[in-house]
């Protein structure tokens, strides 16, 4: 039962074959069985989830109206505030933090009658690409336990891949939904900047952060996006635009369809125009991406080689913009209002320094330091403002691409899931694993990763599709065209 998609589980409840309580018990069993090895969850809501499921079943029995996700367990990255429930952001500094309110997305999920089954592991404050930066535990990839699930939403991605839940929520500041989705063989979507309210999301890089769905397939991802997207006056960056019913048009192909393939993401077959990035691409991934493009060609799409000339600078821009914003956002952890306070200190400033020094992990400190440096007097023009100018050039590259293409397609990540510990000693090497995903956050555009194959060693490969701002519906439909022709999304990891 746990291998079913969310949509199938909804159908079976409607038909009277399954109850919310039986579904929730099955997923809780699965968590009990496999999480000691996977470590995807930081907190599991056994009693509350079962109680909620029984309430949903009672509502159904009484013939009351039910929400779009009625009776479906969902796992949420531990960076979204849950009222009265511990929320840690994977950090020691928040180990006892119990939010006094729900994030907007949590309210939306509750209104849709979804059941919160647990909070998932993540890189501390969403800073990382492997979930190894969690202060609590290392999450393992369900396809190969010695490998990372990617990050920073690695717990959410691993939980879906391992069928510990059929739906999960992640956040994406530089690729943190799409890259783990690729590493774990599932669907993960970062919506446009402004599509989903961040109210109650513990902030990292506020001009980049977005919340999005992780699921087995596109119908489930579309359904979850439908529930969480839309205006919320409590996030002033959340736009007031109607939310399409993404599930409704999902099976309608986009015709005609022009797909832009950037030479910076995928070297041209003749070898010309291979940028520094394309050159670092794993050959097995390159083969899988070309196979996916062949699927689209067989469906009548036009494949157009394009260039995003400033994309090679995206990582450098990101590590100035994101860290500058982080250094400001994380200033609130001062040992005064919430979070840990050091036990011994000499005066106020020393209390702040010691609380932060003890509460933050190495990567968080590194990013706060880099951001503080980039914003400090004498460097702000050369680093921060320069980065914002190149950011505009990156956005303009995309604007030009979308003037002549419906979508841009390439790999989600340059390599399949890497080994636990492989990149922890070299922060820059870790940063480079986000090379294809990061520019979407800088430009504010939506992006999705879908399964498109496996390496010979059995590791999943992700195809990334990017679109113009607020074209989520088109992205999902284009992705669905590939999904209908393939069955990669139906594979489940062989856990024992």
């Amino acid at each position, binding site marked *: 039962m746990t291998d079913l998609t969310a949509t199938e589980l909804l159908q079976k409840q409607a038909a009277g074959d399954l109850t919310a309580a039986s579904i929730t018990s099955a997923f809780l069993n699965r968590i009990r069985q496999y999480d000691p090895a996977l470590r995807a969850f930081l907190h599991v809501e056994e009693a509350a989830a079962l109680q909620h499921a029984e309430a949903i079943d009672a509502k159904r029995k009484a013939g009351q109206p039910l929400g779009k996700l009625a009776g479906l367990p969902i796992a949420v990255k531990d960076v979204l505030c849950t009222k009265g429930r511990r929320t840690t952001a994977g950090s020691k500094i928040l180990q*006892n*933090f*119990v939010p*006094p*309110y729900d994030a907007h997305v949590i309210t939306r999920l509750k209104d849709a009658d979804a059941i919160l089954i647990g909070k998932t592991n993540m890189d501390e404050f969403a800073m990382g690409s492997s979930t190894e930066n969690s202060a609590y535990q290392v999450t393992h990839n369900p396809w190969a336990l010695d490998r990372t699930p990617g990050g920073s939403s690695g717990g959410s991605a691993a939980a879906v891949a391992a069928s510990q839940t059929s739906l999960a929520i992640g956040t994406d500041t530089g690729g943190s939904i799409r890259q783990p989705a690729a590493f774990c063989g599932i669907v993960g979507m970062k919506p446009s*900047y*402004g599509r989903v309210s961040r109210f109650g999301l513990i902030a990292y890089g506020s*001009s980049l952060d977005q919340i999005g769905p992780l699921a087995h397939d596109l119908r489930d991802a579309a359904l979850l996006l439908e529930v969480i997207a839309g205006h919320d006056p409590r996030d*002033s*960056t959340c*736009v007031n635009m109607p939310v399409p019913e993404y599930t409704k048009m999902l099976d309608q192909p986009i015709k005609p369809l022009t797909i832009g393939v950037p030479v910076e993401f995928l070297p041209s077959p003749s070898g010309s125009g291979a940028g520094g990035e394309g050159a670092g691409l794993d050959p097995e991934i390159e083969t899988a991406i070309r196979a996916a493009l062949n699927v689209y060609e067989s469906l009548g799409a036009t494949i157009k080689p394009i260039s995003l000339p*400033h994309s090679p*600078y995206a990582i*450098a821009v990101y*590590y*100035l913009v994101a860290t500058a914003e982080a*250094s400001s956002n994380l*200033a609130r952890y*001062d*040992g*005064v*209002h*919430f*979070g*840990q*306070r050091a036990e011994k*200190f*000499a*005066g*106020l400033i020393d*209390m*702040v*320094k010691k609380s*932060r*020094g003890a509460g933050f992990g*190495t990567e968080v*400190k*590194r990013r*706060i*330091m*880099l951001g*503080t*440096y980039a914003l*400090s007097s004498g460097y702000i023009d050369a680093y921060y*403002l*320069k*980065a*914002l*100018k*190149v*950011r*505009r*050039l990156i*956005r303009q590259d995309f604007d030009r691409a979308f003037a002549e293409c419906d979508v841009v397609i390439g790999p989600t990540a340059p390599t399949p899931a890497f080994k636990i510990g492989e990149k922890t000693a070299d*922060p*820059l090497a870790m*940063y480079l694993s986000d090379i294809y995903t990061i520019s979407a956050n800088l430009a*504010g*555009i939506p992006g999705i990763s879908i399964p498109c194959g496996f390496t010979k060693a059995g590791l999943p490969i992700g195809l990334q599709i990017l679109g113009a*701002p607020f074209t989520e519906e088109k992205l999902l439909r284009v992705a669905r065209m590939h999904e209908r022709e393939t069955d990669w999304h139906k594979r489940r990891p062989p856990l024992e």
Partner: protein
Amino acid sequence: MSLSADEVRLVADLARLELSDADVADMATQLSAIVDYINQLQRVNTDGVEPLAHALDLRDVFRDDVLGQSLSADAALANAPARKGDFYRVPPVFGE
């Protein structure tokens, strides 16, 4: 370009982060490597390019000045490491 231990200590002070001596040494090496990588941005011609702080064309959002729901003092203070009555409690700000 490389950052000295003293520069690292200065930035740590600005960021209000206590670092051990070992942290300072590691940070100097790693930040130097990252700053070297980031310096490739100097190659990009950005003459006449406006900085892009945000992907959206944002306007200020106004609302009517009416009372809405808000947290009670107890809820707001529930996570405070130290409180006194309805206040956050901190060590003395001016001198010892």
